[in-house]
């Protein structure tokens, strides 16, 4: 079977290096500066908002009885989910020997790292007294010693998210080391040579080192694969282990993982369309074929998520449990029906456009669809969290979520943090893995010996 070219333009090794390193070595364009300043302003606004919430109290947000989990938890799950696509691309597709992943992996992984960093802040603030967050860590203390409750899913989350963050950062950094060495050796500027020289750890790329390096990469991929599945499984346990109708379901772990990959690929497409616009030379590396493959994954995982929505409804009816049935009827027809139908339209209906080859290869179409996927997946978590809590067993204790200005500010501000980090990354780190793209440059060319 003839394979499509992974790198267009029959590039030489030097051209590949120059194309990828260009954003690091040149002064940023006006477009980037504009985006960066806006993102940074939003980030500053976010920091101030967090400062006000922390000093005044969680009551500024809409959380109250009965809806005790709100924007913080919803947005935490949203950002953690985004991260999953990066690990899927960098680790799972690596194990499956998917060569197309090479040119997307670096940026997707950067997205993972920044998304997890953004996500990690929410539960820490949601504790209400973030200055006592170190109590989450089991360390010998003078309170007994009183230990953390290892039977609580919330504590599992502490371990899952911190391990995930650590391993993702290490995996990402190890991938960057040879590319930092490339920048170091090209650097004419003394400061750049020193900074990237330190970052490269003195890497020189001897055959023995590469041999160990490739083994390490394989091992980290193999360790990250169960890790990424465990993270969203454990996040779903936060809900599923409770007894609340709408949360207490066994479908949650696979449903959450599929949703996470779905939302993550949505974000990868959003970012990649913008990166391709900002750095036109990347179009030769992240080709329309790459984008199409990712759109297929969006469609497939979108269908899985759609199946999970349907299965939940079926089981709610089939269980014969009045509370469970009511929870789901209330989702679709109750006071939060609008959010449920936003979720269904964005996650199940709109991605169906990708059945048509023309649409899944069109940049404007995929950009718009990916934005809808992002919106839809935020609303999925909103639906799960808020609609289940606001009407449970006792009608006397029903209530609504009192959405406040601070909810909006926290949600919007988190994008400021993510985009600030991401924009800095695009300028400071090689956004495509130079050392990984070079070996696949012959794929799809006649006489290519690496086919």
């Amino acid at each position, binding site marked *: 079977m003839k394979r499509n070219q992974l790198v267009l333009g029959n590039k030489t090794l030097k051209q590949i290096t120059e194309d990828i390193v260009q954003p690091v070595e040149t002064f940023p364009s006006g477009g980037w500066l504009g985006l960066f300043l806006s993102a940074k302003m939003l980030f500053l606004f976010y920091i101030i908002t967090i400062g006000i919430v922390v000093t005044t109290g969680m009551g500024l947000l809409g959380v109250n009885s009965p809806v005790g989990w709100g924007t913080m938890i919803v947005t935490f799950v949203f950002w953690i989910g985004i991260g999953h696509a990066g690990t899927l691309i960098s680790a799972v597709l690596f194990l499956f020997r998917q060569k197309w992943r090479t040119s997307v992996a670096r940026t997707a992984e950067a997205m993972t790292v920044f998304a997890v960093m953004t996500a990690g802040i929410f539960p820490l603030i949601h504790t209400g007294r973030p200055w006592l967050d170190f109590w989450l860590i089991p360390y010998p203390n003078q309170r007994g010693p009183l230990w953390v409750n290892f039977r609580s899913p919330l504590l599992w989350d502490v371990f899952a998210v911190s*391990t995930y963050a*650590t391993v993702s950062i290490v995996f990402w950094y190890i991938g960057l080391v*040879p590319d930092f060495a490339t920048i170091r050796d090209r650097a004419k500027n003394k400061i750049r040579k020193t900074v990237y020289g330190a970052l490269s750890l003195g890497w020189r*790329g001897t*055959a023995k080192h590469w041999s160990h390096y490739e083994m390490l990469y394989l091992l980290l991929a193999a360790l990250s694969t169960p890790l990424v599945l465990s993270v969203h499984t454990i996040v779903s346990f936060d809900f599923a282990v409770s007894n609340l109708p709408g949360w207490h379901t066994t479908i949650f772990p696979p449903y959450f993982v599929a949703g996470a990959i779905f939302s993550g690929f949505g974000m990868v497409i959003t970012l990649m369309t913008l990166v391709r616009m900002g750095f036109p030379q990347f179009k030769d590396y992240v080709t329309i074929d790459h984008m199409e493959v990712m759109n297929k994954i969006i469609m497939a995982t979108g269908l899985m998520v759609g199946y999970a929505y349907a299965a939940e409804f079926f089981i709610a009816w089939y269980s014969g449990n009045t509370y469970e049935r009511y929870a789901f009827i209330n989702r679709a027809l109750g006071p939060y029906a609008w959010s449920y139908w936003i979720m269904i339209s964005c996650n199940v209906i709109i991605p169906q456009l990708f059945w048509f080859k023309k649409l899944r290869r069109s940049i404007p179409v995929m950009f718009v669809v990916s934005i809808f996927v992002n919106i839809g997946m935020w609303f999925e978590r909103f639906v799960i969290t808020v609609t289940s809590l606001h009407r449970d067993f006792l009608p006397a204790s029903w209530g609504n979520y009192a959405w406040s200005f601070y909810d909006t500010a926290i949600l919007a501000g988190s994008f400021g943090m993510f985009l600030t980090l991401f924009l800095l990354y695009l300028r400071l780190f090689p956004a495509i893995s130079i050392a990984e793209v070079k070996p696949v440059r012959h794929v799809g060319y006649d006489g290519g010996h690496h086919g």
Partner: protein
Amino acid sequence: MLDTTGVIMANQQGIAGIFSSEESVLAATRKVREQGFQKFEVLSPYPIHGMEEAAGIKRSWLPWVTFVAAFVGLSSGLALTYWTSVVSWPINIGGKPMFSLPAFIPIIFELTILFAALSTVGALFVVCGLPKVNPPIIDPDLTCSKFCIFVPSNDRGFDEAKVESLLKSLGAETKKAVF
């Protein structure tokens, strides 16, 4: 120069042959090895398929580190959850047994992965001598578009003229270098 432990190390003198293609350096590596050289280094901007076999590099032993570290992580996770929940301060939570293993599995699993991943990375640092401060750069293009075979002067049967003519005959540009 200083190595990782801060000890003064003498840079290794030798002859470097610079190649401009992956195929030529791979073929040349085989020849250099056939000539009986053992301490030579091959430098490339990316891992070359088949280089391990050509240069006679043994399979990396990093998986053993991963295995042992994973086992240590698993045992630590088990010990931590058991000791804190059963020995140090047993608390009845929801009538569950003090040693509620199913509930401890997520913790044990995460610690297994964490120990395995970080130790394997640590092992790479040790085996590759990273971080290395100011490593001698034979040619700045070796992390971009060129390839190199470096034969150190302390290798068995090293003779400057012979090594130079061997590398030249294999299509390299040669120069004196330190590694």
